[in-house]
């Protein structure tokens, strides 16, 4: 593990949950680099961080606005489909590819933040669910591939409210559970979710990789 004083995190994605998790990581002492919803490719990363030699943490939460809009699949145009599913999936894959060398240099960690709809499905959010579930499974594949490079990879499933407008998020939660969150609240992104992300980079979790954690107050209990 890299000493705390040198920890550098790249957080990718515009708005929440990227913004709030980034705030929490700064509060926990991380040096933060940010990318928004810009096109992700090798050149993007190289241009954004020309002097970057290592990364201790990459947090992916890049889901452009069209992902987060409720849309019936039968009414989507080809352009909307691409923007809401194929492009975000491709960008998340490219981010992993671009981050490999700086993560390997640091023995770093990459965490994909995904909405509940990824593993549970979401009426009106098929493109978002497809892209996000692809990235959740990608995390497992990367963990298998990169373990010997001392890179650990995880996915964290969050409550839909971390990504969606309140009315849509409430509908998703209602569709997925007969119960209220056992902890009585949806976790705060900057105060609680960021702590989980931070913890995953520490020696306490050195033997953990490829994990799919659900950090939603206990609403979704798969398996």
């Amino acid at each position, binding site marked *: 593990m890299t000493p705390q004083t040198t920890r550098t995190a790249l957080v990718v994605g515009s708005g929440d949950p990227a913004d709030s998790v980034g705030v929490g990581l700064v509060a926990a002492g991380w040096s933060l680099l940010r990318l928004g919803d810009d096109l992700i*490719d090798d050149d993007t990363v190289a241009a954004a961080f020309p002097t970057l030699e290592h990364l201790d943490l990459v947090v992916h939460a890049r889901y452009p606005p069209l992902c987060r809009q409720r849309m*019936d*699949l*039968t009414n*989507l145009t*080809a352009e909307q*489909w*691409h923007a809401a*599913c*194929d492009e975000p*999936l*491709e960008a998340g*894959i*490219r981010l*992993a*590819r671009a981050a*490999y*060398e700086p993560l390997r240099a640091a023995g770093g960690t990459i965490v994909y933040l995904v909405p509940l*709809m*990824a*593993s*549970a*499905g*979401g*009426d*009106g*959010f*098929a*493109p978002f*669910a*497809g*892209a*996000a*579930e*692809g*990235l*959740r*499974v*990608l*995390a*497992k*594949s*990367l*963990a*298998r*591939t*990169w373990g010997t490079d001392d890179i650990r990879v995880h996915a964290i499933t969050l409550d839909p409210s971390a990504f969606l407008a309140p009315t849509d998020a409430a509908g998703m939660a209602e*569709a997925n559970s007969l119960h209220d969150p056992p902890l009585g609240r949806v976790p705060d992104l900057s105060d609680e979710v960021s702590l989980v992300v931070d913890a995953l980079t520490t020696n306490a979790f050195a033997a953990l990789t*490829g994990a799919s954690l659900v950090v939603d107050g206990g609403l979704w209990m798969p398996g």
Partner: protein
Amino acid sequence: MTEHAGMSGLLEGTVAIVTGAGQGIGEGIAAALAAAGAGVVIAARRPDNGEPAAEAIRARGGQALFCRCDVTRRADVDAAVSAALEQWGRLDLVVHNAVSPPGPPRPIQEIDDETIAMQIATSTTAVFHCAQAAFDELRANGGALILLTSPSGIEGSGHLPLYGAVKGAQRGLLKSLAREWGPHGVRVNAIAPVAWTPALDTATAANPTLESRLLGRTPLGRIGDPSTDIGPVAVFLASELSRHMTGQTLAVDGGRYLGL
């Protein structure tokens, strides 16, 4: 058609499109659907295997026609739907099986943009094409959509990380579509198979220990046959027998994957 004994008549009067049906699992599923009584559109990119696959079904007394179809092209998928309607006047089932060959094992940092784009196009864009093109007919007939995913889309793959990602994406799509289309009476399910296919033939030829390792991890002790092991499960998911199932993934792999 004794190899599909017990399924005869289950799908009588129904019509299916199977993408990637010129070989491997798609061909096996098409054969099983036809043996159960369905008229089948063999939607395949290559006439040199699509035509023989359709002819083989007809030679056994089934109903099938070949339609050239590149699933990354919406117009081709529309043409497959039109072919079903022109030949049989209805469409009850779409099985999306076609996939771009994943190629040799490679870590994600060594995969080029073109390969990423092609895998996504055949796995997620193609689901969009199939779903949109077929929805009206599926809704009218209380039909079904079946996606061929993979155990790699559930547990990830160290050898084929890109393949695992796009197959995982299909599971996110199927669950969402199951929710979206359930009120319309359209069911959406998936099969995660392990079976002998040209792709597996190639992989085992390149890696001589692969077959024994795979068998060692398979409780039933053999690798599946596309027609007699995978096909009947597709028939089940297409039939009234599974009328209360949607959003599910059935691992049909001899018990290799037990994580569901």
